[in-house]
């Protein structure tokens, strides 16, 4: 498979995939060279210990250049939430489509649109951030995404500017993406004192279609800026999804992340946050729902580089069928990061005998005056709670669904923006069969 990807890279010349400002192509080449040296992670790689990559590494993935038949707006309606005042950017099989997108009213200086378009117009602006946050030596998948970097969402919010409505990036794969790999690349930059909300959705229009999404999102949160970032991965349950969200936060900034993973046969999301300065707050919430043969893997890493920062993390999982989940939560506190306050919680609810979860906190603390706690639980539905609901007249199956939803709702409640929270709520209620 590695050979085929190298070959696909070499035959890009003259296609849109090789376009962009002068500085970018050497970066792509270096990334491809890096991937050529490392190849895919092996089965002994600690980072992939519980997540067999065979569905990706043993298959052959062709590149895809957009879409022949555009989906109708009505087909996308369930995925764009119907908020006409949001800015919604729709990418079909990796390519931006203006006709399916909607630009809401945006304050002056804000850029929201296609990364490919921005690269054509003014590549210099992007040079300061694009590929600067997500290192290609971090993972072979990041290297691969960088090598094929072409298109994705761009959001730039200038200093002291507040976005009135969320920006929604919707990545849709269609039947035509069967057997293809797509490398979405997003860049979100909030300058000093800016405020915004971003929603990233990964969806499939063809149920049962096997594709591979290899996404990277780079996020720069400037001094005093505030970002609420929601990631919704609900691709087909046969799809493969690898995603990295790489965040850098500056002084006094606030970053709140919510990651919902319910699609994909094999779905991995890495959320890495680096706290570059003092008085930073980072909130990371996650929910993964798996059933059948799905595998959902969440790796989070938070790097406390400087003193007086706070990070708070809650990831919850609900597993059914023969599904698997992996949670790895890394917290690194550098020697100078005194007064760090870091808390990590991972809770799992097993609905079936066949489901299994591997959860692991990974704390590397080199400062002494810190408060760092972690906890992980794996359990079943509370029998006393079930009896309580049934004793009020709610039948057993409904009571089970209600309590399962309650387990999820506790973390959904942490999403600050009401319209986003309402959508997540609806998605989870539907998935769990409560409505």
């Amino acid at each position: 498979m590695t050979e085929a990807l190298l070959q696909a890279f070499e035959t890009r010349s003259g296609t849109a995939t090789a376009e962009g400002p002068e500085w970018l192509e050497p970066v792509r080449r270096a990334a491809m060279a890096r991937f050529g040296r490392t190849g895919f992670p092996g089965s002994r790689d600690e980072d992939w210990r519980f997540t067999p990559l065979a569905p990706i590494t043993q298959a052959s993935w062709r590149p895809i250049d957009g879409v022949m038949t555009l989906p109708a707006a009505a087909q996308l309606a369930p995925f764009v939430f119907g908020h006409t005042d949001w800015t919604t950017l729709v990418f079909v099989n990796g390519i931006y489509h203006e006709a399916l997108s909607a630009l809401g009213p945006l304050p002056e200086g804000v850029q929201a649109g296609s990364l490919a378009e921005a690269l054509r117009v003014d590549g210099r602006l992007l040079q300061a951030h694009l590929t600067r946050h997500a290192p290609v030596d971090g993972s072979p998948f990041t290297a691969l995404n960088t090598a094929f970097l072409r298109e994705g969402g761009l959001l730039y919010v200038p200093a002291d500017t507040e976005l009135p409505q969320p920006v929604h990036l919707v990545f849709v794969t269609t039947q035509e993406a069967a057997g293809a790999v797509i490398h979405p690349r997003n860049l979100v930059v909030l300058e000093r004192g800016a405020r915004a909300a971003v929603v990233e959705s990964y969806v499939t229009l063809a149920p049962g279609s096997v594709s591979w999404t290899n996404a990277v999102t780079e996020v720069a949160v400037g001094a005093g800026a505030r970002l609420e970032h929601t990631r919704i991965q609900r691709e087909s349950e046969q799809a493969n999804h690898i995603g990295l969200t790489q965040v850098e936060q500056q002084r006094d900034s606030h970053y709140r992340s919510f990651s919902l993973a319910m699609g994909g046969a094999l779905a991995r999301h890495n959320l890495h946050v680096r706290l570059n300065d003092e008085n930073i707050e980072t909130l990371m919430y996650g929910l993964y729902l798996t059933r059948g043969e799905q595998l959902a893997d969440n790796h989070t890493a938070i790097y406390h580089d400087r003193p007086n920062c706070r990070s708070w993390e809650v990831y919850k999982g609900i597993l059914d069928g023969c599904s698997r989940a992996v949670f790895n939560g890394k917290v690194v506190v550098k020697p100078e990061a005194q007064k760090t306050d870091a808390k990590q919680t991972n809770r799992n609810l097993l609905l079936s005998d066949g489901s299994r979860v591997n959860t692991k906190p990974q704390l590397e603390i080199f400062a002494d005056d810190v408060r760092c706690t972690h906890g992980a639980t794996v359990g079943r539905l509370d029998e006393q709670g079930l009896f309580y609901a049934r004793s009020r007249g709610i039948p057993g199956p409904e009571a089970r669904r209600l309590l399962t939803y309650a387990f999820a709702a506790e973390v959904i409640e942490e999403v600050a923006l009401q319209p986003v929270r309402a959508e997540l709520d609806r998605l989870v209620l539907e998935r769990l069969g409560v409505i």
Partner: protein
Amino acid sequence: MLEIRELRASAGDTEILKGITLTVNPGEVHAVMGPNGSGKSTLAQVLAGHPAYAVTGGSATYLGQDLLELEPEERAQAGLFLAFQYPVEIPGVSNAYFLRAAYNEIRKARGEDEVDSIDFLELLEERLKLVDWGPEIMSRAVNSGFSGGEKKRNEILQMAVLEPKLAILDETDSGLDIDALRIVADGVNRLQRPDNATIVVTHYQRMLNYIVPDFVHVLSGGRIVRSGGKELALELEARGYEWLEEAVGAAG
């Protein structure tokens, strides 16, 4: 309404109820008293269908049906209500959502139409008055972070909305201060009608000053050792359970 005959029940290998016989008619209030470990809470939970207990003998007939054959939800749908000694916290589900779900399930089981959230709110506002509460409590998660008193009050609110035919109050007085006790007891009293009945399970006589029983039964060692009128509760308060246990022991 309820006829219990020689009811026996175990938790694991331990027999807790060793032959309970008790008849409750519409319009009556029965108090079941007894020391810790006498089996009075077990009786309440067995009647509600708690899966942790196995019925090993006897019978319980409720409104002409074999109560012990019914699932817990079927008992609730048939109008039986247990106010829990330890109400369960359900973080993530609002009090309003939970109670409407329960209300509608009971209506469905009776072949009635479900009510929408607006109609339900109307009903709720009226019932909230019964426990002297404002509507704020309904947006909070079920019992989550509630004080002991709030949890008990919430049980009575549920009872007020679900309008059971037979209400069993399991140690509803425990953990209540005197003001909360009065509110809870007032609520229970105002819900009493000639066609429904109440079983008050309690360790102390205190609650019975407010909810006056027609009959008092004393449980000891899984059996009813004495039944009488409300004056029996006062006697127990004055003399303690040991007196009765000794008297029964001497008689036996």
